[in-house]
């Protein structure tokens, strides 16, 4: 039984068990293969084939969501029985926005057959290329391939199904305790060049011998795509989430020029619909520095008198963006470096945490390579540093001095998620500590 048939069967069972209820069902089949390497050898090699079914029912003003991985006839019948019992004793849900109406898909998922069918040997070959290209340096990281097949059905007549693939290669090379990194995400395994990534990571690691320690200060910086992915992560989670905006926990304000005019941000979904059955499309969130939209689910859309953008996730957290990207500019990293009198080239940001969500104040550390730029040239490596920075301020009007021409898809921690990031040249980044504390 495929996921569409499973969703259809659960919907039929639920409609019969809960007359008068609004009901929707998602069924997701995921095949994921992941090959992890460390100390330049494969140390974890895993695969999973999972099917999960989620049933949501709204009856007499009460809502409950149940899930199961038990997809036998008995398992699905049990899911429906459990839901029917729970919804009658669940607390009231006055914010229920109703079900998604019937509407067709706008995007189709990209399925690359070679990625869908990739074997452990195919992933191991990418890892072999990465390790070999590092030229004897210790390496660590992972190569993942995955295939998702999903279906949505609801009692208002909405019926959707789609598939998508994903592939990721993320690794570091280590030289005398200094790490260099290269990351890439795609819908096709064939886009991942293990040798090129291994060589980039190794080159970064090798160029960090004898680093200096710099004092806390505000520095002009170039953030490479790996670091910029962290900005996108936090803007997605805390910035353009309509629930956070409605509750005044976010800085985002539609119609306001909140960013430098060099900045345009968009969401380019890999999954063609969300868990509420709303078709997704490309969503422009910032255009030339002006915040133009927020991510909505059906609840936030109902509050705003708007339409859902297809970013339904958790009702408690609110809408979630998984594929946020910066529109590329015209610069190269070399050109940006040549314009800096004194500043920092930062490869990656690490363990960033929000100090205050409304100002999007974050602290975190640099990782995988930092270099001092003097007189338009990279002059020497720098020890890792801690920063404490307001992210919107770093990208504010007049603060962005350049945007790289190549926007590189970066892996995220969410299956089918990815951040598309160019390098950024920023006027100021607030370094608040260094490696010695």
């Amino acid at each position, binding site marked *: 039984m495929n996921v569409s048939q499973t969703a259809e069967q659960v919907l039929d069972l639920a409609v019969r068990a809960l007359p008068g209820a609004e009901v929707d069902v998602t069924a997701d089949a995921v095949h994921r293969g992941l090959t992890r390497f460390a100390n330049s*050898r494969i140390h974890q090699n895993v695969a999973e084939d999972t099917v999960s079914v989620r049933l949501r029912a709204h009856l007499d003003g009460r809502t409950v969501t149940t899930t199961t991985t038990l997809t036998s006839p008995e398992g699905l019948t049990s899911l429906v029985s459990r839901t029917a019992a729970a919804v009658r004793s669940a*607390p009231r849900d006055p914010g229920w926005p109703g079900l998604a109406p019937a509407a067709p898909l706008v995007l189709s998922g990209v399925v690359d057959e070679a990625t869908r069918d990739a074997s452990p040997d195919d992933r191991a070959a990418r890892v072999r290329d990465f390790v070999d290209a590092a030229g004897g340096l210790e390496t660590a990281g992972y190569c993942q391939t995955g295939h998702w097949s999903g279906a949505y059905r609801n009692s208002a007549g909405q019926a959707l199904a789609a598939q998508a693939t994903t592939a990721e290669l993320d690794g570091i090379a280590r030289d005398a305790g200094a790490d260099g990194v290269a990351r890439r995400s795609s819908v096709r395994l064939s886009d991942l060049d293990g040798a090129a990534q291994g060589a980039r990571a190794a080159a970064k690691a090798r160029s960090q011998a004898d680093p200096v320690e710099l004092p806390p200060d505000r520095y002009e910086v170039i953030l490479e795509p790996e670091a910029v992915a962290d900005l996108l992560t936090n803007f997605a989670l805390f910035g353009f989430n309509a629930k956070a905006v409605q509750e005044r926990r976010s800085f985002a304000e539609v119609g306001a020029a909140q960013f430098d005019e060099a900045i345009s941000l968009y969401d380019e979904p890999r999954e063609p619909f969300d868990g509420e059955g709303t078709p997704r499309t490309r969503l422009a969130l910032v255009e030339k520095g002006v915040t133009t939209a927020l991510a909505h689910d059906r609840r936030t859309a109902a509050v705003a008198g708007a339409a859902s953008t297809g970013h339904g996730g*958790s009702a408690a957290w609110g809408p979630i963006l998984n594929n946020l990207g910066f529109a590329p500019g015209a610069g190269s990293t070399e050109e940006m470096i040549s314009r800096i009198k004194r500043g920092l080239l930062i490869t990656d940001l690490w363990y960033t945490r929000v100090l205050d969500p409304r100002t999007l104040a974050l602290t975190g550390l640099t990782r995988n390579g930092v270099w001092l730029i003097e007189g338009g040239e990279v002059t020497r490596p720098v020890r890792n540093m801690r920063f404490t920075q307001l992210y919107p301020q770093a990208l504010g009007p007049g603060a962005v001095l350049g945007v790289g021409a190549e926007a590189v898809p970066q892996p995220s921690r969410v299956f089918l998620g990815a951040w598309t990031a160019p390098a950024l040249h920023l006027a100021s980044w607030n370094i608040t500590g260094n490696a010695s504390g």
Partner: protein
Amino acid sequence: MSFFDVAEAAVAAALDAGARYADARVMHKRYESMEARNGEVEELNSDESAGIGVRALVGSSWGFYAVPDLSDSAARLAGARATAIAKASARVAGPGVDLVPTTVNTATWASECRIDPLAVPLSDKGDLLTHATKTMVEHGADQATGVYQIWDTRKWFVSSEGHRIDQHVRECGAGIQATAIGEGETQVRSYPAARGQYGTRGWELVQGLDLLAHAPRLAEESRELLTAPLCPSGETALILGGEQLFLQIHESVGHAIELDRILGWEAAFAGTSWLDLSQLGSLRYGSELMNITIDPTLPGALGSFGFDDEGTPAAKRYAVKDGIWVGVLAGRDSAALAGLDYGGSVRADGWARLPMVRMTNVGLEPGPHTLEQIIAETDDGVFMEHNRSWSIDDKRLNFQFGCEIAYEVKNGKKGRMLRNPTYTGIGPKFWQSMDMLSSEIEYWGTPNCGKGQPTQVGHTGHPSAPARFRNVRVGVRA
């Protein structure tokens, strides 16, 4: 066919396919959670998951395969696939893998549970959260949230060495939080911990929290924080409440002593550790007041179990004794590689995840003081409590924490409230500066420890009490 039979079929198939060791876990997990906001329930989830995960060792390489099908044929296929994946790992192979010996057990274990949390009516649980959050709004909170979570996990573990262990672990917990929103920032107060308090106990744990009684205070404190003076910047004596100190233990000790990190197995994702195995037994980690135990036998703590996911029985050992580093969190393969003789700290958060080194209950043994005595003996300092943010470098040395609330301490007395408190430091220097430690230990639970790829969520416990640290940098600003 019992679940033991299913697991044994998978192990047999893995061996038939060429594995030299194999184990299998059948798991059946139920999860229930509810979140309420401003007097209304906004999310109620009830999840059920079951399947089998098989681990196979071929030469020096592991393979793992998981499937949500508990038929005999699916289990045998899973065993064969795990072995095939292990063989593919040999394309980039490493040094030989051994497993330290462990007791081969046929055993049953269950956590203590007086009130089955899944049997408590949803309406009662909903009333608790809606009343608590409504009360916080009535007392000035702009946003008031409450949450409970319940996990009910059955596991059947079988290995090719003869293990046959079943466990029933029941865990639950809850918490509430008030947020006040000012002109340019937000202020938050939580109870009993920033993400709630959790343990391997029944609903009696939640009843004992008495969430409603604390709701008015939280809301009032969150509003008061909006106009409180900023925490000053500089070096000073820092007194940490037990809830904040447990996260300090988790981040700067617990993760640092994970043997897989020390060996570089998590280098790319989770990072490594500043600890060097050659210094085990001699390195000064902290002051002589610092005694850190690894103890999954603690009744009711969130990191408790009878056997880990390799079948090793729970046992207490020291990680830091009188300030000296003496132990690590280990699995059977990592311990063998490091030349150690113990494992016992390997777990996975579900049947579809590969078991890995995870914290159990990692915490401080009590000191000789009380919080009242610590404050009374401090002339000039800051008392911070309740975690708000946490960040630490990839070697687990340089950290910065933010707390929800702080108070001036002057001339032995707790003074005015301070907002946006932060402190920063380097792990061993910080722990060596601990000069007063309270006896008021509580077992704090962390239900959201992330590690591994794909990310696994670990449940960890942390005995902790208030303590004082000298010459700590506080008040870092954005």
